[in-house]
């Protein structure tokens, strides 16, 4: 009973905040609604017994990805009246695209058939003794190690691409070289001269 109560609570808030994401006038409010949706999705994961996925959802999406979203969106200089002005103009084409997508989704889901022999084999529940983390680790690093490594490689390539696109070394910009500063000592930095009085250097 209490699970059902929390399921409906999390599900209702998730759907409501997802609606808030697309209906909020202020983009920052949209991102905050998105965070609320992530958070409640994590709650739904906990109810399913997938507490590891729930925590990862919060750490990765809420703790890192959404922060960067917010970071970018906060710096946008948006004129809200201008944003709203083209609504009627774009309404027809938007609704046509929406209808096409909806029809496609209905066709795909409606035509979905599950192989009769596979029913009940889609998911194998873990035993009560093993924890989430152990169960995921046991398959992720053995059976799915290739996919895991390939996913890591794809992310690495994307990261290198982003760095290559943005890294600029300008000749006139002074840069700090910490190693050089640390290695600097009296021998390289100063010269001791004993000056006779009245003579100068």
């Amino acid at each position, binding site marked *: *009973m*209490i699970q059902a109560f929390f399921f409906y609570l999390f599900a209702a808030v998730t759907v409501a905040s997802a609606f808030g994401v697309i209906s909020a006038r*202020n983009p*920052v*409010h949209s991102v*905050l609604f998105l*965070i609320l949706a992530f958070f409640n999705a994590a709650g739904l994961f906990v109810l399913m017994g997938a*507490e*590891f996925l729930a*925590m*990862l959802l*919060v*750490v990765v999406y*809420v*703790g*890192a990805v959404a*922060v*960067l979203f*917010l*970071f970018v969106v*906060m*710096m946008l200089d948006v004129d809200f009246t201008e944003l709203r002005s083209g609504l009627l103009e774009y309404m027809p084409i938007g609704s046509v695209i929406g209808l096409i997508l909806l029809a496609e989704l209905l066709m795909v889901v409606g035509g979905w058939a599950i192989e009769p022999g596979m029913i009940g084999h889609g998911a194998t529940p873990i035993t009560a003794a093993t*924890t*989430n*983390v152990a169960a995921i680790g046991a398959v992720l690093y053995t059976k799915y190690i290739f996919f895991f490594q390939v996913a890591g490689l794809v992310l690495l390539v994307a990261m290198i691409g982003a760095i290559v696109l943005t890294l600029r070394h300008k000749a006139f910009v002074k840069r*700090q070289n*910490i190693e050089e500063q640390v290695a600097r000592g009296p021998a390289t930095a100063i010269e001791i001269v004993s000056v006779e009085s009245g003579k100068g250097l």
Partner: protein
Amino acid sequence: MSAFWADYLWPLIIIVAESLVLLVVLLIGVAYVIYADRKIWAAVQMRRGPNVVGPWGLLQSFADMLKFVFKEPTIPSGANKGIFIFAPFFATMVALAAWAVIPVADGWVISDINVGILYVLAISSLGVYGTIMGGWASNSKYPFLSALRSAAQMVSYEVSIGFVIITVLLCVGSLNLSDVVRAQSHGLASALGVPWLSFLNWYWLPLLPMMVIFFISALAETNRPPFDLAEAESELVAGFMVEYGSSLYMLFMLAEYVAIVLQCAMLSILFMGGWASPIDLPPFNWIPGVIWFVLKILFWFFMFAMVKAFVPRYRYDQLMRLGWKVFLPLSLAMVVIVAGVLQVTGWAP
């Protein structure tokens, strides 16, 4: 009805009662931690510190609290009102929520969940939203700059904190915080044949570099000096708190100190054996675990306070360099080394 009472209502009452006890103890503790912070800082600078309210100034924090509560809250006309008020409440709520999984003594934990350590990491990573929302909703330049700074800073240092936690987890073999403490009951001292020297069993010795990285990252994560760039008073007046006053400001301060004490508790649990006694002989092991735990938290808080008193503030690019170019490769290398050593020697749990 009796099943309903036994299954739902009674556990609910227990949880609420436990939470209230923890909350009251924690908040009173934080009041004295703030007092200790000011006293230590004053002692380093050869001042007296708070010494007027109550004997030795012991009631100073409560006087400050009353002052904040009775002040008139001002909300700037250009501010985004809802988020402006929500931000400090969110910051405080998140800082307090992480305490639900902290084991203060053997079995003394509100929620003994399997992924306790990830929960703490997840909840403490939410702390940044209080700062960002407060800074943005103020609709003012300095708070906004501070929000941007803290967003980048806290995300950067979470990465190295995550890697440090992974090395500890490799040694423990569990994400449960109570298991982390229990795993530290055997180690070097039992291998040497002197099991009563139980402080040698703790992870501070084998994982010393990781403890240092975690400590410095915890300073950055909680916006403590020398990494308090989010509220650097010489550049940003008071950062994201410029427009805040009265109770809302107090909630931000409370959230900050609760988060600091939480990081001290995490340092004690991960590296200093949590509630365990440092010497497993009478009279030391007669002392209840909770007292040892509090003493360890106080030790780490003393370190936090001393760093605040000693170290000048970092420049922002130096902060980023330290996080991404020093700590990230170092902690990543340590994950590989620790995993390799555990695998080769067969110590892995």
